């Protein structure tokens, strides 16, 4: 499903990612682990096309993956830490917008809102949401649209214990549905419960 070959990213003289290569099959979850500053977020940003690697390539189903390709954006759902919100759209409107932009009707929006415990916040504007609710909304944006690859950057952040339990369950169900998941996390329990593969980067850092 996902193949990464020789990915390298530098900031000036500092090499953050050095020749990173791995593969991820459909229905499997790979967890990216490493100390702070090891390049986990940079790796995920390069995979989704939010950052440009200096060398290397990302392939989806054997085809070179370009963020500008509509097919790539249709297959790949991501929740990174750079998500922003329209200040004048409510929670439910954000999710319906995503569903519509992916050719859907928004039929699953209500279900996803309920599953993520956002029913009481469905009509709230983003500026009134807590950091945990914003995180849930970001995650929800991945589940109201079709996806074959899910990229998550520390999805457990700002979730309470119940939310973390839900997340583990959801990721297991995503795998069973055939979705490949690439996830960076510092949560050892979440990784142990869900991960099939472990990708360690920046070990020497």
């Amino acid at each position, binding site marked *: 499903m996902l193949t990464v070959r020789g990915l390298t990213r*530098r*900031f*000036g*003289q*500092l090499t953050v990612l050095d020749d990173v290569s791995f593969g991820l099959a459909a229905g499997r979850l790979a967890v990216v682990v490493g100390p702070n500053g090891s390049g986990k977020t940079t790796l995920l940003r390069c995979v*989704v*096309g*939010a*950052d*440009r690697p200096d060398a290397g390539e990302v392939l989806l189903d054997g085809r070179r993956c*370009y*963020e*500008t390709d*509509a*097919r790539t*954006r*249709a297959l790949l759902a*991501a929740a990174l830490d*750079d*998500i*922003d*919100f*329209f*200040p*004048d*759209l*409510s929670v439910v*409107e*954000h999710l319906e*917008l*995503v*569903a*519509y*932009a*992916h*050719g*859907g*009707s928004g039929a*699953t929006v209500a*279900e*996803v809102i*309920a*599953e993520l415990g956002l029913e009481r916040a469905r009509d709230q*504007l983003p500026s009134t949401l807590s950091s945990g609710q914003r995180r849930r909304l970001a995650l929800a*944006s991945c*589940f*109201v*649209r*079709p*996806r074959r690859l899910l990229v998550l950057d520390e999805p457990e952040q700002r979730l309470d214990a119940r939310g973390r339990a839900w997340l583990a369950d959801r990721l297991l*169900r*995503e795998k069973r*549905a055939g*979705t490949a998941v690439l996830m960076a996390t510092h949560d050892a329990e979440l990784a142990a419960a869900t991960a099939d593969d472990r990708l360690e980067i920046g070990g020497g850092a």
Partner: protein
Amino acid sequence: MSTELGVRPGSPPDARRLRRRLRRTRRRHRTVSLGDVLTDAYVLVLFAGMYGWALVSEVRDYLGSPSGRQGDPGDRYWLGVAAALAVAGLAWRGLRAVGPLVVSPAGQSWVVSSPVDRRGWLLPRFVVLLFAAVAGGGLVGLAAAVATGAGGVTDLAGSAVAGAACGTLAVASAVVAQGSPRRAGWARFLDGGLFAAAAVVAAALVAGHLTGFSVPPPTASLGWALGSAAVPAVVVAVLRAYRALPSVDRASLVSGAQVADAAAGAALLLDPSFLTGLVESRRWRSIGVVSSRRFRPLGRFGVLVQAELWRPVRHPSALVVWVALLLTLYAVAVALPTLAGPAQVVLGFLAVGRLTGGLRAVGRSAGLRRSLGGGDTVLNLAHLVVPAVSVLIWYAVSLPMVRAGVGVLDGLLVLGTVAAAYRAATRPPMTYGGVAVDTPVGMIPVDLIRQVVRGPDVVGALIVAQLLWP
């Protein structure tokens, strides 16, 4: 509870329908009416026009006055050419930093990340950008012609056409570069090339003056020639930019939106630190890693000064700007001798500003001051050593072009410029409360004005002192 996982892929809507839907949804919650937006736009255009025209008239009056005509006409013309090249370099750098195509961070997160047609989504922005480039470039060309004393309708129209053509060419070329970053190595070096060309023209102007050689200005206006020559290039660039729209990737939109947000914040809140902070952060990120050194045991004060000295060595752009501003002063002194005095103070203030990074850092961060320990006075003094030395050198090397001999005035200017740099670098964070005064641009808090003019106020006083000094 579990949701249906298999959301079925459908064909994404076209960009126009999605845009219409988003606009309709947002309108439901919007409290600002179209009338409010048009009123704001009218006020903005009115004040920009008023103050812009006032500036153009002042420049025109000065250049037409006996003071403005003291230099050689050829020197004045080539100084204008050097200034135009430098401004073009700055404009290109700005365009590239912003994008120039920008999508808000929310738009990127919720719409641009979907399979909606990228060209369809970006096309309206591209068209608006082109219209803005035509209008803005044309106005700048017209203003330049008026300011430099062009009188005939043909000359004015020629300058407007040249400005519009150059503006459109620049914007379209920047979009081409945004759509193909890997193949656009030329775009990275174009601003450097324009700055180098400006420096060469300015250096030739100064050298020519010193050796008694002057290149006369062209006898005919070049506006129409430049505009006509640029039109085919504009057509090609716009077509290529249109073709490049689907290739504009999220990485470039992310980067540009950060700069656009910071610039908008700086303009709205009159606080340039929004933008300068981002620029500084990116400047140091481009270095990435440095070879760490051990401090020489010269005591607390000496160690702080050493850290200050390493900064320009690690990123020498501040020194390059310093030298470029000195060259600018030399060129101004040759072409517009009556402006040499004020230019010496203003450019000296700008040159030292790039060397006050340490002072700005300790000034804005109470946490940093606490961790460094000691009193604030010693900390500020230690971080003032490098700026003070740079001001001293500035006046030493610029003096021969401005005045004959050293006097009390020069001591006053050195101390005053150091004080201005100190005041500007230790400007406290903006506060928007307190007493407000009614101004032609609306109610403005007094504290805000005080903070904006902190630093430039001393520069203004020094210019007045210099003009009145016997």
